[in-house]
């Protein structure tokens, strides 16, 4: 119990020594295996669903699900649902990013702030935040405010801890030299601390973004209404299994695109960093 400082990011995709965990995995299997794997899974799904061993209600064929997605895209609320879910996820993610960065810088620079928030974070991080959903609904209602609040509550932790770890890991020589050359705290933060901590901060963002998406979906499931999660829970209530599986496929694709997008952004933002250079 001696050390209450938050232990490193523990959510999905825990980085070890600043490297993303998938890299080891990536290098073991060529990227082409990735797409072959996707195709294999889809073929296996189609064949198994059509084999008659399982009722189409429990597992509709992939082609049926695709047709359903197509129909929803043409005439249904697919894009409205995607747009709403992404809007909630990104809004919550952005707010969590701002709060997380501010709090992280504050905690890394001020003993008093660190003293106050250390126990809050070390207790809050491993908590299943979704438990607070009924409380947040009681306070803020069943609309976007409470969904976005839940997202912020969940996504802020990996960003705070990554920011603290990043800033604490910066070479002291850099900070001393900046100070020596007359940099004020504000300059220090924006020109030395944040850029120096950027690799770890981005790792925190990479962990937080999928969390934001999934919390958006789960809160939509719990509260109903428009959005990918709400559509899935409707499909379940009405026992429309193709629509339900369509939701799974849509969420997987969106989740994949978000993760890829963040990885690309990381590479762009870190092109000056040794990490970006070695990766080529």
């Amino acid at each position, binding site marked *: 119990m001696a050390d209450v400082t938050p232990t490193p990011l523990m959510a999905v995709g825990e980085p070890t020594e600043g490297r993303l965990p998938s890299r080891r995995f990536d290098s073991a299997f060529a990227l082409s295996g990735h797409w072959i*794997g996707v195709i294999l899974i889809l073929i296996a799904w189609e064949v198994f669903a059509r084999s008659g061993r399982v009722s189409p209600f429990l597992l509709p064929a992939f082609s049926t699900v695709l047709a359903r997605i197509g129909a929803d895209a043409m005439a249904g609320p697919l894009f409205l649902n995607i747009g709403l879910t992404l809007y909630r996820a990104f809004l919550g993610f952005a707010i969590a990013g701002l709060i997380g960065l501010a709090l992280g810088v504050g905690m890394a620079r001020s003993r008093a702030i660190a003293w106050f928030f250390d126990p809050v974070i070390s207790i809050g991080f491993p*908590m299943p935040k979704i438990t607070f959903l009924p409380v947040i609904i009681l306070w803020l209602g069943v609309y976007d405010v409470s969904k976005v609040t839940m997202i912020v509550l969940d996504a802020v932790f990996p960003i705070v801890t990554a920011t603290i770890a990043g800033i604490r890991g910066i070479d002291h020589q850099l900070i001393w030299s900046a100070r020596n050359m007359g940099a004020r705290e504000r300059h220090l933060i924006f020109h030395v601390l944040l850029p120096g901590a950027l690799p770890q901060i981005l790792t925190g963002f990479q962990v937080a973004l999928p969390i934001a998406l999934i919390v958006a979906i789960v809160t939509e499931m719990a509260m109903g209404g428009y959005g990918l999660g709400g559509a899935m829970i409707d499909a379940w209530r009405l026992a429309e299994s193709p629509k339900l599986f369509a939701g799974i496929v849509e969420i997987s694709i969106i989740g994949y695109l978000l993760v890829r997008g963040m990885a690309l952004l990381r590479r762009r933002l870190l092109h000056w960093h040794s990490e970006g250079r070695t990766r080529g």
Partner: protein
Amino acid sequence: MKRGALLLFKFLPLLILAVLWEIVCRAGLVSSLVLPPLSAVIEAGIDLMTSGDLWTNGEVSLYRVAAGLLLAITLGGALGFAMAWWRPLNSLISPFVEILYPMPKSALIPVTALWLGFGDGSKILLIFLGCMLPVTLGAFNGARGTDEALLWSARSMGAGPLRVLRDVVFPSALPELMNGIRTAIALSLILLVSSELIVARQGFGYLIGTLGSDGAYDAMFAVVLIVASLGFIADRLHLAASGWVLRWRM
């Protein structure tokens, strides 16, 4: 004594927040319908414990988590070791792992409910599916990272494959395996509570939901705090267990 004082100092902020909570409610700054005072929440929590509602629902939830996690750790861990051990299996399964790993498992809540209904089965399946891959990945990466020199020396000293697995590969994979299990524990509670909030007729999440819709907010807050602290306690227990399991390391 000094250690106790230090601990008190570290956790003082939480105490301050608790006192603040009580004061804000007592002073009438917020309605007790919005935030019941902490003392009322604690009282309601004790009532729930003595009336047995907490235990009947808690038992169900703990059973679901334990069963799902146990399945995920044994099967997921075994799969990870097997993939590291045998290359063909690795190239067969790793694409699947890589695709399914980032897929948000909470999206499966309605699917498992469609397959197995409102009861224990759907929660256990969900927790198993959600928690297996972090363990697999931990075991795989850990086993992959085994020092080759250790493998060679063990073999040259006449150790059979099973001995190598037990005495060399398993211990050196243990740190990463424990890390994977840590992620799995955190995920399991999230999946449990969210699935119980959305589709269940028993369990912690269900209890929170019904208390909330009955307007028993002090009791609802009590259960929320209990479940949330379970996450913290589980993490601390895991930390202690890791320290014990890895005590042979420097």
